């Protein structure tokens, strides 16, 4: 498959490129409206601050492209910041509007950061992507998604329980970094890509 990675100027694109290639898929970097709409699978990468990323997306009009892509049910995977951008708004540094795809907002965690390897819990008894409690994933964030529980597919515990993964139609958001989570992360990404391929 061809995976399209949106380059919004500050994401860790090299890491994701390497991971996707190691799974046997092709990768291309995109940052224009038509490529976002036409992409087989769109990846929103994950390092940076919410206001800086949204400034770029609104200034270039690419926010409309992502929203339209979700509306026509084409696959989107948001990772870490990429997942948070899908929310209505975030109060990181200042109140900033997000893409408004997910029904919820991004709020500061009640502690400084969640930077660790942690296990996640699936909201379903048998996880659709084959993840178990013995899988650990790398988290690195200080804000988290708070919203409609119907959209939550994974949660994580670090003093409190909060959202680790969301799914709405063919839009998936992962708060952790599967591309940095070694064997568990690769397996999860592979299973997500395969699920889109099988549709």
């Amino acid at each position: 498959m061809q995976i399209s990675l949106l380059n919004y100027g500050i994401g860790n694109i090299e890491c994701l490129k390497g991971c996707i290639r190691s799974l046997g898929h092709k990768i291309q970097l995109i940052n224009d409206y038509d490529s976002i709409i036409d992409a087989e699978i769109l990846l929103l990468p994950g390092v940076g601050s919410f206001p800086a990323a949204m400034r770029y997306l609104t200034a270039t009009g690419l926010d409309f492209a992502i929203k339209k892509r979700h509306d026509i049910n084409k696959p989107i995977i948001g990772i870490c910041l990429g997942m948070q951008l899908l929310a209505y708004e975030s109060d990181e540094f200042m109140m900033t509007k997000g893409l408004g795809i997910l029904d919820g907002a991004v709020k500061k965690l009640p502690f400084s950061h969640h930077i660790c390897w942690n296990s996640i819990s699936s909201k379903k008894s048998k996880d659709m992507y084959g993840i178990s409690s013995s899988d650990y994933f790398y988290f690195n964030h200080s804000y988290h998604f708070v919203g409609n529980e119907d959209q939550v597919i994974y949660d994580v515990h670090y003093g409190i329980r909060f959202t680790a993964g969301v799914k709405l139609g063919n839009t998936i958001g992962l708060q952790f970094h599967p591309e940095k989570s070694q064997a568990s992360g690769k397996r999860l990404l592979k299973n997500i890509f395969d699920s889109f391929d099988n549709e």
Partner: protein
Amino acid sequence: MNKKRMSAVVTVKKNIAVQSVGYKKYYPLGSPEQVVLNLDRWAVDEIFIISIDRSRNNQGPDIDLLKRIAKLQISTPIVYGGGIKSLPDAIEVIQSGADRILVDCAIDYNPTLLQDIASVIGSQALIGSLPFCMENNAPFKYDYLQNKLVKIECAYTQPICSEIMFVDVKNEGGSGSFDLSILDHLEKFSPDAILFGGLTDPRKINIAYENNKVKAIAIGNLFTHTEHALQKICSSINPEYSRPPFYEQR
């Protein structure tokens, strides 16, 4: 269940991975890429790549090294430090393959830099490096460029970086010699702590991990020199704190 991190430090000097002792002696290991590949295969929690001669030589970050490492398709978080003096440097390092950055000298010469970087790449991607020394019962930073002790800038104590890497300068490169009294100073700093410098004794690692401020410990020479040292250490410490050791299946 969340785990504390067990990180590895790859020290790079003149493009060669080296073992480092006390900021003074360096012994060649070989290709940094091969060292990083090994650490990724052994499933270390995080890899610090520190180019120690970039600032001294008035160079920016080693982007070529980062791009070579990015091509290796490793799946372990990477922290890069060395020569980062500006916001454009920080952005270029992240875009070239690092997940987080480590800043040392620039904090003293440009104290507002940390806030500028945090506002763009996020504070979770920013670590301050603090080579730590006690002198006459007072804490100091070791400025390795000037080879002297300097006051610790308040930028370290404020909640700008997500974490501070406390380097036990006197024991760096040693084995099991880390000075646990450093733990008594962590509460003065708002960010959480990564401890580095001779911290290879499992008993001391367990004590360090028990401290709430300590989120990670980092080991350099032992991990880069001895195969499966990581797995042996993971097997020796309290399993509540670390992921189980991983042995590659062939």
